[in-house]
């Protein structure tokens, strides 16, 4: 798994790549929660996610809930097919804010 | 005619042989379970399945604390009974004043561990057998196994540790209650004070006597758990089977306790 962040106009773009499984999801969770505590607007770029398991999804859920409480933005961007299928299984695609590209998310 | 007798005799021998093999196999199963349980206590962490404290505490409450009222009642009754019989018997020789000796030694060395063991076997040993038996026929034990959770570590170790901790404590409590109850009767009957009775106890009882009873109660703890688990694990044939094995576990556990008690007393007092 690979996690990179960069800033774009005050919004933090977190790029996830590779396999997010039991082993890696705690570190994803930790990074996301830190951003949430700082009340940052966050875009999670999931284009390169080959696999995400339930614990990874759970970390996204927790971060998203916190963003809603803080009234900050938390958008999943360019979700890859494997990740999207897992989201759809639990109907979470209807819950998360999704965007097709980083540019579109930044504009919206 | 003779043929018939020989055939019957042969059948009987055959049955006896099979029963013996089964008994030996069951004994082996029990020994192996006990060994595995000890192994998990020591090696659990290394095998990424540590034995956890929370279920042990729950079992301690279930086995120990919940049994306190009934142990108290029975221990007091046994103490009184010993005092009554002791004074009645010794009166024949005019030696009532020596009654404390008999009460003290028999309570601490024999009756407390025995009554505690029998009670725990009836309350908790049977419950353990019933629980494991129900889990066996409900495939819950298979479910644990295929999850990669050792049933021995998850289901056997907590009650085993809890018994090993609680049985000596319950026995010690039964010692105190039994001696106290006996003291009340003795001091009333012989017109002495409870303090004098207490002094006498302190003179008679050695640490060794307490240890004798407590050591036995630890052995009983292991016996009750193992017998309960073996019977529970061997359940077949639905709910009726659970009932049958539960009853069997109580009978086996109490028999094992009484026989072990005798053997232990014989070995230690020689």
């Amino acid at each position, binding site marked *: 798994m690979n996690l990179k962040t960069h800033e774009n106009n005050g919004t933090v773009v977190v790029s996830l790549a590779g396999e997010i*499984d*039991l082993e890696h*999801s*705690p570190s994803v*969770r930790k990074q996301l929660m830190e951003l949430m505590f700082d009340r940052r607007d966050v875009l999670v770029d999931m284009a390169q996610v080959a696999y995400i*398991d*339930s*614990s990874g*999804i*759970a*970390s996204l*859920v*927790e971060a998203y809930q916190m963003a809603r409480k803080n009234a900050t933005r938390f958008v999943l961007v360019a979700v890859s097919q*494997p990740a999207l*299928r*897992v989201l*759809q*299984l*639990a*109907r979470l695609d209807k819950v998360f804010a999704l965007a097709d590209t980083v540019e579109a998310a930044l504009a919206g | 005619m003779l043929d018939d007798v020989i055939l019957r005799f042969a059948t009987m021998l055959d049955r006896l042989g*099979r029963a013996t093999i*089964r008994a030996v*196999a*069951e004994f*082996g*199963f029990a020994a*192996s*379970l006990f060994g595995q349980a000890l192994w998990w206590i020591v090696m659990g962490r290394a*095998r*990424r*399945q540590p034995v956890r404290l929370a279920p042990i505490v729950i079992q301690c409450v279930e086995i120990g604390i919940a049994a306190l009222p009934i142990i108290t009642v029975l221990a007091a009754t046994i103490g009184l009974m010993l005092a009554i019989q002791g004074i009645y018997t010794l009166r024949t020789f005019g030696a009532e004043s020596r009654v404390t000796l008999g009460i003290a030694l028999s309570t601490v060395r024999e009756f407390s561990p025995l009554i505690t063991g029998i009670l725990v076997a009836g309350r908790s040993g049977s419950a353990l057998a019933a*629980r494991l038996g*129900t*889990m066996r026929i*409900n*495939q*819950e*034990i*298979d*479910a644990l*196994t*295929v*999850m*990669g*959770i050792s*049933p*021995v570590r998850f*289901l*056997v170790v907590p009650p085993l540790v809890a018994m090993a901790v609680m049985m000596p404590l319950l026995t010690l409590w039964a010692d105190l209650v039994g001696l106290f109850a006996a003291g009340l009767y003795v001091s009333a009957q012989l017109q002495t004070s409870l303090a004098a009775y207490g002094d006498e106890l302190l003179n008679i009882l050695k640490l060794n006597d307490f240890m004798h009873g407590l050591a036995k109660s630890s052995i009983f703890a292991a016996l009750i758990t193992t017998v309960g*688990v073996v019977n529970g*694990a*061997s359940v*077949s044939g639905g709910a009726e089977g659970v009932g049958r094995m539960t009853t069997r576990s109580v009978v086996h556990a109490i028999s094992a306790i009484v026989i072990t008690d005798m053997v232990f007393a014989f070995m230690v007092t020689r």
Partner: protein
Amino acid sequence: MNPVQVKNLDTHYGHRHILKDVSLEVRQGEIFVIMGGSGSGKTTLLNHLLGLLRPSSGSVHILGQDINTIGALAKQELRTKMGVAFQSGALFSSMSVGDNIALPLREHTKLDDTTIGIVTRLKLEVVSLAGFADLMPSELSGGMIKRAAFARAIVMDPKLLFCDEPSAGLDPVVAASIDDLILRLRDAMGMSIVVVTHDLDSAFKIADRICVLDKGEVLALDTADAIRASPNERIQNLLNRRTEEAEIDPDAYLRRLLGEKDEDEDEEPMRDHL
């Protein structure tokens, strides 16, 4: 590498020969149905796939590892990668539904409690049991117990899922919803799924390939369509629910009628493990 590989499996129960030279493999991402009537040996086969029984001869490879020869720790590791939904559900009756589902996560992972809670409720959503986490298994209906068992089976996101008689004892509507659940799980997670069933409708609805077991032998192993079109008489009998005229062994029949027992027939093998 196929997730399940069975080679020349032979097993005995006492003196009875249960499985006879069974070989099969389950491919990655497929739904593989093991079908057969009662007494066909399908439950025994499942127990061998799960490593609950030891074969007389032959081998069972699960996710590339021989389940009967690997070490205890490797086996424990392997078992976290497979899920099992038992026929009876086998939920732990002393724990709430939520605790049942969370147990594998609590025992095998170091995940945060919040994460475990979310994953648990997520799985309940997937099996349409949202809001039932705090109930005890005894408060659930048959169909709900099966669903909860599925939720527990998939909580670790296994690569391989085994389902024992998923539709047995359920009314047709609930049974169909369980079939849909199995299909959804495969499509979303790419799991390989092994289903043991005697339910023909369910089998043909979900199966990619079907293995027909009869009296401990593999009668046929092919795609669902090929099985349906099979000219084999015994398979057609099974498909059309015709009972077979069993061949009679006069010696054995007479012995049964006279109440003479075969040697050791009544002896159940002693369980030597918990």
